[in-house]
């Protein structure tokens, strides 16, 4: 079932430095169905997000946004389609030569459709949504890790995207920070945005997503709902949900 309102990859292979990261990988993100990709560190989760955005070129297979296949196109060819997607990078990826305000207003400023005053208003509104208005004139280097994440989310929201990718949004945050991010994602979903999250944090995943994908050894090992995942008989999935002594590295 291929719908026009989706982002998907088909039969995708990707390897880097002679190592297979993804092999014959199929993935589809439909509008309105929030998803989480799970998998151990280094499995290739961030790579999937970058491939979906066309930031990396697959070795074979295709990536499509809506009904446009972006694989093989130059970046300018799918810029418009990609603008419906925003991403919150693992480390925030804030532009460190710009203030928080300039970071959040970056796209609006670059596009140049709005006046300075209108941009400032939107920036303040988005910063308010994540609760960091006070940081408006600070530089990213002056922020704490949690604040960086929230500013990065505000930047992703500024251009009003339909899809938002979150790369480990709760990693390294205290429980209150995690709760806040979780709540924020739920508020976004209530506004009609579709989220795709990559995380190791099962509680946040189950609280914010309907479908789960488990990535292991370049393959999609499991794909389904929370109940299906909890009842799964796949050893790796069982081990991931509740690690036992068998998983010890030593």
């Amino acid at each position, binding site marked *: 079932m291929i719908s026009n309102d989706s982002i998907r990859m088909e039969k995708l292979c990707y390897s880097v430095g002679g190592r297979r990261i993804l092999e014959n990988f199929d993935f589809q993100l439909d509008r309105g169905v929030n998803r989480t990709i799970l998998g151990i560190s280094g499995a290739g989760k961030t790579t999937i997000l*970058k491939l979906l*955005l066309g*930031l990396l070129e697959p070795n074979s297979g295709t990536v499509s946004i809506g009904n446009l296949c972006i694989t093989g196109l130059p*970046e*300018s060819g799918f*810029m418009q389609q*990609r*603008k419906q*997607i*925003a*991403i919150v*990078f*693992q*480390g925030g*990826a*804030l*532009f*460190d030569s710009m203030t928080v305000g300039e970071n959040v207003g*970056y*796209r609006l400023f*670059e*596009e*140049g459709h709005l006046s300075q005053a209108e941009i400032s208003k939107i920036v303040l509104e988005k910063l308010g949504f994540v609760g960091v208005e006070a940081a408006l004139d600070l530089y990213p280097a002056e922020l704490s890790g949690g604040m960086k994440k929230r500013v990065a989310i505000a*930047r992703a929201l500024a*251009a009003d995207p339909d899809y938002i990718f979150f790369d480990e949004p709760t990693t390294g945050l205290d429980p209150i920070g995690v709760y806040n991010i979780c709540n924020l994602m739920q508020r976004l979903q209530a506004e009609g945005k579709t989220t795709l999250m990559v995380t190791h944090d099962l509680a946040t995943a189950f609280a914010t997503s309907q479908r789960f994908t488990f990535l292991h050894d370049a393959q999609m090992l499991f794909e389904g709902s929370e109940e299906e995942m909890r009842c799964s008989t796949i050893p790796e999935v069982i081990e991931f949900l509740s690690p036992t002594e068998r998983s010890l590295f030593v």
Partner: protein
Amino acid sequence: MTAAAIDKILLSFFYELQNYFTLAGRTFVRIFQRPFYYREFAIQFDKLGFASLFICILTGLFSGMVMALQSLIQLKPFAATSYVGGMVAVTMIKELGPVLASLMVAGRVGSAITAELGTMVVTEQVDAMRVEGTDIIKRLVGPRLKAMLLALPLLTIVTDMVSIFGGYIMSAGYQINPLMYISGLPQFMVFQDLIEGVVKPAVFGGIIAITGCYVGLNTKGGAEGVGAAAKKAVVLSSVLILICDFFIAKIFVVFRG
């Protein structure tokens, strides 16, 4: 070494070469396209060009002085010290001014460009910019190329003038008539040499900017990768400058007839 290994090295060399020229070509075309990023250009011109003024003045002063000193020693036995101004001027304007200024700037600016862009790559800022819909070449490479294309010829002119002044100080110390020094300046030159003296630094400026950006944007790994990239950019641009210097000189010799 096996044939397969050589094959692999050659392949990756030509692959890199192709990418380098692709970046250079694309950037050159896109600096004439909107948006022009004037503010970014002004920042880069100040940071890369204007801030290099002092080292270029120092370079010019001392190389002019040493040129005059060495020429004086050589010319004295032939009672030909009146040629000293002309010798300093021709070597500095055609060769040493452009090359020395460019090498100094390559060390200073090439590494700075690479480190900045490399850090942006490894912290995913470049990816973030692309997702925001920015053309990386127009936004990051273009302003740096424009800044260097303009700044390096200007810096070279300053270097040349200061070096001629340095030669003048040295000659005055050796009791050369100042008027003789000044009137002797153009004696070995034709107008075309002045053109050569600004074409070279413009090309070298392009090499520094493109090499810095190319190496920076292809940075791999973390902080260590950025350090390695900066080193690579300086070495690569310095070598390219010296190679191109030869070929540009050769071309001008041909046209001189």
